[in-house]
């Protein structure tokens, strides 16, 4: 059975996801030692701006995403921009992956350990991180990461998930596509207050429809920092952050992680670190 990682990268006017995904792919090779494929609408740009991408990625798959939805991207607690957010193609992971067993990862999920290297040949065909997780900010209350809302179903992270090609996983992705195509209906049904299509929400809904015995949990917990925090240094498996302070916008406390895979939501600071610029 072939095994590999699939990363999605859709650039917008300001954020070079292709660059982030190349960085993520190099870390996948280092910590998981499996081939990595990329799904993008900017293959030409990627190969032009990052020539080594051709050797790093196993396959570069072109898939266009026709969305105009926009959302706010923070860079720390004081700066932000409204930008296009192309996230529609995640539901096609099953059709797009060249592997029998696939680990799908956001490009901003920064691997610092080999925790996920042993999930292959799993007894369960679909693994995902349940909500809550570990926020690097001690004080933040993340109720929205536990349930879709206080009257609704449990939340799951579409940031990273594993699947093995099988009949039931195929059905799950078919349901996922139906949720995406009928997003307005499903967001009303599940009391979701944002019109934005979010993969975490659509995955949570589809998992709820498939039932609890369809999937299992990935090992460990999802660890994350919001885009209101800043990543300031990446040194091998050590990451340094400035975490926003409670009630003091623009003030931060320092935090350092070692050997922990972290979902870094502040793409601006991630790109600065990749470019070696730090703060």
């Amino acid at each position, binding site marked *: 059975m072939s095994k590999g990682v699939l990363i999605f990268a859709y650039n917008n006017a300001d954020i070079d996801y292709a660059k982030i995904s190349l960085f993520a792919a190099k870390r996948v090779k280092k910590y998981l030692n499996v081939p990595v494929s990329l799904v993008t609408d900017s293959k030409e740009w990627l190969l032009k701006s990052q020539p080594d991408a051709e050797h790093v990625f196993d396959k570069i798959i072109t898939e266009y995403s026709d969305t105009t939805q926009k959302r706010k991207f923070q860079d720390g607690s004081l700066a932000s921009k409204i930008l296009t957010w192309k996230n529609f193609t995640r539901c096609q992971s099953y059709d797009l992956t060249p592997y029998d067993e696939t680990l799908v990862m956001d490009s901003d999920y920064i691997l610092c*350990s080999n*925790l996920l290297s*042993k*999930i*292959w*040949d*799993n*007894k*369960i065909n679909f693994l995902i991180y349940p909500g809550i997780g*570990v926020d*690097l900010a*001690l004080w933040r209350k993340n109720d929205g990461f536990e349930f879709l809302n206080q009257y609704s179903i449990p939340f799951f992270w579409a940031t990273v998930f594993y699947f093995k090609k099988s009949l039931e996983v195929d059905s799950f992705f078919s349901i996922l596509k139906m949720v995406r195509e009928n997003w307005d209906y499903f967001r009303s049904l599940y009391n979701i207050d944002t019109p934005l299509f979010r993969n975490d929400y659509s995955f949570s809904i589809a998992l709820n429809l498939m039932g609890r015995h369809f999937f*299992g*949990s990935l*090992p*460990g*917990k999802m*660890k994350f920092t919001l885009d209101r925090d800043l990543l300031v240094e990446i040194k091998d498996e050590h990451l*340094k952050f400035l*975490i926003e302070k409670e009630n003091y916008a623009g003030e931060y*406390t*320092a*935090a*350092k*992680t*070692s*050997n*922990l895979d972290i979902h870094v939501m502040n793409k601006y600071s991630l790109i600065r670190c990749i470019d070696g610029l730090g703060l």
Partner: protein
Amino acid sequence: MDERLEKAFQTANYMITLSNQRRLAAEELAQNLIYYTQGSSFTVNRELISFVKTLIDLNHKSTILLDDNNIPVEIKNCKDFLTAILEVYNESMNTYLKKYVEIKSKRRVGDLVSI
């Protein structure tokens, strides 16, 4: 700002960073305590170790255990399994102790995040 107050704020900042670093070290420990075998994951804890040791003491060569996703897994050799999980436990605990002592010895925010 009053010098005493400034020092108090510095201490408060240090305490927040200290709590956070201790929590992150505990998360690292939790991650290190995961043991994989036969496509299943087990969180190694004292309960699992004691249970497997009890089975061995009662002359059970093999057993069925529930993994972290509640999937039954046949453990064909309890002794080998115990050796493996004890190794995971000891190695993880040693790393955690080392880190915990190091964190405890640091008295400034800058030092805490350079460990």
